[in-house]
């Protein structure tokens, strides 16, 4: 493909990206504060209830175990919702066809949506960490790696959110995906407990759960240990970043959800 057709309109790309950020920043209570409060409640309730039980990694304080899980979970939901909500609300408002009228390349449009979601995901993840500092301290074993873990998580789920926005045509279906697919996968991905400690088949879900390596990367960066092999988690996460982006790009290029065939 001609290079100029990949990065065609820098100002257009930045405008679209800032719109995606501007959109959620206009309603911060709903988009940033609410997930932050939820995470703090999880910390208070689960932290209090499960601290004495051996559900985390042996030898690690449970609150330290929980914080990276909560940060990852916040990033997952926020990054998914941003592009999915944006695209579906444009369908709802009948403005989705505007996207086709801009002289911005497909790659620029896709990246604007993904980066917008990624920004919100990382923001919620970092704010969760910042809020928990008062209860568990501020130490992070590998700070840059922690940021990278949140970024990769947010990238993957912003891509999935973009796919959902394109494929789904209403908020009901989006909420169904969140409630029936993403939430259970998050709970079974090791946010609140070590997945290996689950009984029987439930513990095997980790092998097909994309959230499992993402949580463990962030956890490794935060406390220096994680469930399973960190190199395998990095490898799978890299594969998830690439494949989620490629699928989103394919669906967008096909015009699914934004063009009439």
């Amino acid at each position, binding site marked *: 493909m001609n290079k100029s*057709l990949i990065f*065609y*309109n*820098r*100002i*257009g790309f*930045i*405008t*679209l990206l*800032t*719109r995606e950020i*501007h*959109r959620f920043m*206009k*309603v911060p209570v709903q988009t940033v504060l609410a997930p932050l409060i939820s995470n703090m409640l999880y910390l208070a309730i689960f932290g209090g209830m499960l601290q004495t039980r051996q559900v985390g990694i042996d030898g690690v304080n449970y609150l330290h175990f929980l914080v990276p899980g909560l940060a990852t979970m916040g990033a997952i939901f926020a990054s998914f919702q941003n592009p999915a909500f944006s695209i579906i609300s*444009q369908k709802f*408002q*009948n*403005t989705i*066809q505007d996207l*086709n*009228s*801009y*002289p*911005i*390349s497909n790659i620029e449009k896709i990246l604007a949506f993904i980066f917008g979601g990624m920004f919100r995901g990382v923001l919620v993840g970092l704010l969760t960490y910042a809020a928990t500092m008062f209860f568990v301290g501020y130490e992070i074993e590998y700070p840059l790696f922690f940021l990278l873990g949140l970024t990769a998580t947010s990238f993957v789920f912003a891509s999935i959110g973009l796919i959902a926005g394109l494929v789904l045509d209403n908020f009901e279906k989006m909420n169904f995906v969140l409630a029936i697919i993403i939430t259970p996968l998050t709970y079974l991905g090791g946010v609140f407990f070590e997945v290996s400690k689950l009984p029987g088949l439930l513990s095997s879900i980790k092998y097909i759960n994309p959230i499992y390596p993402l949580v463990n990367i962030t956890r490794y960066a935060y406390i220096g240990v994680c469930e399973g092999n960190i190199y395998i988690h990095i490898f799978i996460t890299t594969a998830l970043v690439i494949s989620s982006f490629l699928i989103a790009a394919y669906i967008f290029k096909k*015009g699914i959800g934004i*063009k*009439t*065939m």
Partner: protein
Amino acid sequence: MLSIINVSKTYQRGNKEALKNINLDIREGEFTALLGQNGAGKSTLINVLAGNVKKTEGVVKIGGYNLDKNELETKKIIGIVPQDTGYDFVFTIDEALKKQSGYFGIKNNKEYIDELLEALYLTEKRSARLRDLSGGMRRRFLIAKALVHKPKILILDEPTAGVDIEMRHTLYEFLIKLHQSGTTIILTTHYIEEAEKLCNRIVIIDGGRIIADEPKKELMETFSKEVIIEVQFDYELKLADFEFLQEYQPKIEEKTNLKLKVLKKDLSKVLQKLSQKNMEFTNLVVEKPKLEDIYLNIINH
């Protein structure tokens, strides 16, 4: 300026053939009306040009650029005012227009945005959120939005639907000025008098095909060979008394008025026939057909 060559569109859903081998060449500076009934294919054609609908066959060239090969270049040349008054409820008029400029790669466009807002009587509402605007204001906002990048071609899909008469005339004035400044305009509308007032070319589309495409003047002249005459009498009429004028499709209106469709050259013949029957009339009105009559005539045939 805009060439549509053998364009067809069959929708995958329902296998509906919406456009059948459309050929249309719009020249620079034209103000073209695209007329047709609901479901005739007007909006499909516009959506093909806008890139919202994938055509099945054919070639579209906008400003010399092939839509399939240089799609992004074509976007800079056209501005589209959609039929739906959808809006992004989060932003104000000002924010939305600044963002719209940005999408087209324009960084500082404040001066032109001010100009547009002024011309469309939206300056006072520039800080209002789009959800707080009336239907007419939203229509004007959509026109401003379509023009922020100064497109050479403006396509308006029923821009005055649901707009009150006063505001409609304000929009007419704006469009006339815009056309005079050199913008090529394509307008779809259900208000035929709108097309008659504004446009210099009439394209009629029916069942996905173009069934008429002529300069308005020529179209009007062609059909002006036939006039409608109203012969007014001071007594009640019976249709049976006018069998001798059967070829002119006589109709009685308001009991005392006789309406006939007559070729201009036959006018004296009709008057002669009336006087031979000793039918004295009080008044005679000759009406030139309006574009609406011509449109209905073409559509019905």
